[in-house]
């Protein structure tokens, strides 16, 4: 396992540079939007990665609620953290792309708003984890994750009714995407997934070690208190 990590790092670095090359050089320039459209290869894979991580977070939270398994809790924590980072990338690259193309930075469109609300929910999830006292954190966080998941369809329908005006054309608009662009998109997504997995993995190991250290320290101080009272 330990040897696998550097290998994964090298693979990720290679894949990311190859994906960058593909996105900036190989992919054809979009006819109307021009080079700005290339942000698409970062925006969309980040979004997919973030949503996937949030999904894993939800599954891990449910597993934790049922089994009370520490590993599931660490997975939930890690995927929420990395997911928020990717979601932030989406929310930053989105306006940068939207400004020259639509002429506005932001619009309360379905997908944008849903992403923003998800981001808000998961930031509050991380704040809760930060603020709650250690013993109950996993449980409270898992409960909040479940509530957040219950919220998603409601958010979806509310915004869907609120306004749906914008951009089906670019993604999933029914085969309008150039197959070469689709290929570059998938390469980028693969690279992003590798990267996300690598970060999650190292964060997982770090958190695991962190908890072991905490446990040892708690044990030590207990022993010290005991020997202190005995003497």
């Amino acid at each position: 396992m330990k040897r696998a990590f550097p290998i994964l790092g090298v693979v990720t670095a290679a894949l990311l540079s190859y994906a960058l090359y593909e996105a900036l050089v190989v992919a054809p320039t979009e006819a109307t939007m021009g080079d700005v459209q290339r942000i698409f290869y970062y925006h969309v894979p980040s979004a997919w990665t973030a949503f996937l991580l949030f999904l894993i977070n939800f599954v891990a939270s449910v597993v934790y609620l049922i089994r009370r398994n520490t590993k599931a809790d660490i997975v939930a924590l890690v995927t929420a953290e990395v997911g928020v980072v990717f979601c932030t990338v989406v929310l930053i690259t989105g306006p940068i792309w939207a400004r020259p193309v639509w002429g506005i930075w932001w619009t309360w469109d379905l997908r944008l708003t849903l992403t923003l609300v998800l981001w808000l929910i998961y930031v509050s999830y991380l704040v809760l984890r930060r603020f709650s006292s250690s013993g109950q954190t996993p449980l409270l966080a898992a409960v909040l994750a479940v509530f957040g998941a219950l919220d998603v369809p409601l958010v979806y329908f509310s915004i869907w009714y609120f306004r749906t005006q914008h951009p089906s054309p670019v993604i999933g608009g029914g085969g309008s995407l150039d197959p070469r662009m689709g290929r570059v998109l998938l390469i980028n997504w693969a690279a992003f997934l590798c990267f996300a997995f690598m970060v999650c993995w190292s964060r997982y190991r770090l958190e695991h070690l962190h908890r072991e250290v905490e446990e040892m320290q708690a044990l030590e101080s207990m022993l010290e208190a005991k020997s202190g009272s005995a003497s």
Partner: protein
Amino acid sequence: MSLTRATLAKDLRLEWRSKDAINSMLFFALLVVVIFSFSFDPTAEESRQIAGGLVWVAFLFAAVVALNQTWARELRNQVLDAYRVSPAPANSLFLAKAFGNFIFVSVLEVLMTPLFIVFYNLRALGPAYQLPMVAVAGTWAIVVNGTFFAAMSLRTRSREIMLPLLLFPISIPALLAMVEATTAILTGEASAKFWIVLLVAYDVVFTVGSLWLFETVLNAE
């Protein structure tokens, strides 16, 4: 059920004698109304457009004041620990607290609505009989999640700040529904039906969710 009734009666009696929650909520909401009113100084037509948002934002913020006090008084003298070891079902305690908050916030709304009408010169152009439905469903939406998250934030540092941080993101669809429904009724331009249905769906989903998970949260150790 009898435990629900007993706890609810106890909370109402306490509140009747101290009037802590209701007074602070009322004054807070009043401040919001006054500040918004003179910072925007809207005409009757404009205020119809924005009043739905103002009313519900004011009520949401004011409700947080009451929600924060929900469990605080049970912490003194370890009352909450007594609940935990008692064989009484956790959900009846939760329902009592949620009903209590519902009553507090409803009283607030009943008292504040005339003020809104006076300050913003409001008159509904749509079907006004739908407004109480929106108010009931919307208040329950705020209160059921608020009571639940208040119980969760009990176990965190600086819990008074924690509650809105947990409550507001989750409440976004409910808040959107309340605001849009109220605006639709006040302006009479659109139907509020979809939003009322959405609010009821929200209420059902989160009431079930809260009842399902409350015991876990209450006994979290």
